[in-house]
């Protein structure tokens, strides 16, 4: 298994319990959607996968490494975390510098080649010298993905990748994510996008895993959807 969480729990300093006894395994090459209502603990779980939040209870294993102070740097190299707002992800003055940021920190070889390949993978090679602020929102989202692809991670963790995207940008994003060959965990409220890209879904509610199974079966079950406060767009329903 590439991702292995066993009994993970997390409580924020104000006493809010975000995760309780979360156990989850993801195999190499799998694409998994992480679904659930607002405040269910999805982003908290994503932040555990690269050790930004250390597990207070339970253990996290990534690519065979037990996540801890000794291994956190190696794990971050393997887990590409793409945040919801591209303006949080793109903090360097130019696109090229931002895509080079991870490889330079991890002292990887051929930084220029990595930048070129990552930007080509998301169709943004022409923007290498441009400031992120001059790009459209959809372009910034694509560059944000390039910033982690340049590290050649084994695992891609995406937080709400389709939020605020227009339909064409959303389709382009789906094409990009389908083409990259990595294990993927995608936090999303966009159920149709989850269905398009992820054969498997995990539903998190009240900080625990409430469903772990085929995406299609979940979306075709109105009772389950209602229980987890999940909704398909108006007029859409799937035959059981």
């Amino acid at each position, binding site marked *: 298994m590439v991702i292995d969480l066993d009994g993970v729990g997390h409580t924020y300093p104000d006493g809010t319990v975000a995760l309780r006894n979360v156990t989850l395994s993801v195999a190499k090459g799998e694409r998994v959607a992480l679904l659930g209502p607002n405040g269910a603990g999805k982003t908290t779980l994503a932040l555990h996968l690269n050790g930004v939040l250390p597990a207070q209870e339970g253990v996290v294993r990534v690519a065979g490494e037990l996540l801890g102070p000794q291994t956190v740097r190696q794990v*971050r190299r393997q887990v590409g975390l793409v945040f919801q*707002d591209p*303006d949080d992800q793109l903090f*360097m003055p130019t696109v090229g510098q931002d895509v080079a940021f991870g490889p*330079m*920190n*991890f002292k990887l070889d051929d930084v220029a080649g990595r930048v070129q390949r990552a930007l080509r993978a998301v169709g943004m090679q022409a923007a290498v010298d441009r400031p992120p*602020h001059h790009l459209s929102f959809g372009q910034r989202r694509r560059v944000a993905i390039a910033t982690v692809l340049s590290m050649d991670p084994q695992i891609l963790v995406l937080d709400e990748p389709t939020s605020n995207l227009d339909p064409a940008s959303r389709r382009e994003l789906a094409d990009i994510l389908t083409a990259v060959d990595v294990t993927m965990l995608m936090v999303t409220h966009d159920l149709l996008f989850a269905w398009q890209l992820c054969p498997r879904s995990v539903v998190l509610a009240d900080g625990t895993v409430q469903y772990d199974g085929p995406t299609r079966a979940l979306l075709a079950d109105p009772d389950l959807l209602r229980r987890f406060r999940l909704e398909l767009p108006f007029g859409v329903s799937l035959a059981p």
Partner: protein
Amino acid sequence: MTAFVVIVVLTPREWISAFLGYAAILAVALAFARVPPRRVARGLAIEVPFVLFAVLLPFVGHGPDNWLGLSIPGMWAAWNILVKATLGVVAATLLASTTLPVDILAGLQALRIPSAFVAILTFFVRYVDVVADQYQRMRVAQRSRGFTASSPRSWPVLAHGLGALFVRSFERGERVHLALVSRGYEGQLPVPESSGAAWPAVVLPAAAAVIAMVHALW
């Protein structure tokens, strides 16, 4: 560019032809870089207090007077301030017009400015437009609901707006920090590469040095 200004400042005030030479190379550089005259004029506005001070010197200075009754040492002092300040400000305007922010950051790093300071400036360059956009959207939202800042009674609304902007920026800072550590950040930003586009920084001091040397040897 610092080298150019240092040469200008170190040139004796009596070397009038050298100053004319510096002005000529600045004018050529401004024309070559297509810097709009209006931008140069805006840059020169910062000099106004010094100009006012310099204008007073011939009237209040001591020493021998000329036929108009103006102090000759005072006139030299005024000339010294005016010519060096003007050349310095115009050179700074040229630098700002022809140099990308990323090159200025690379230059600061090369000058061994403390890395924390360079990092703060790097984030400032990246986020100043993002925060300005947020402020603009907030102003549009305020105006859309009938708000006009016309009297001191509107100050609390403006203060609340700025407070909200500060809180949002602070929260963004926390999220950016998460994104930084997620990609291996351990307190040191990678050294930015200069684009190599800041040609006046090399050409101007070299030309000024030649003029000063020719004048000294003449």
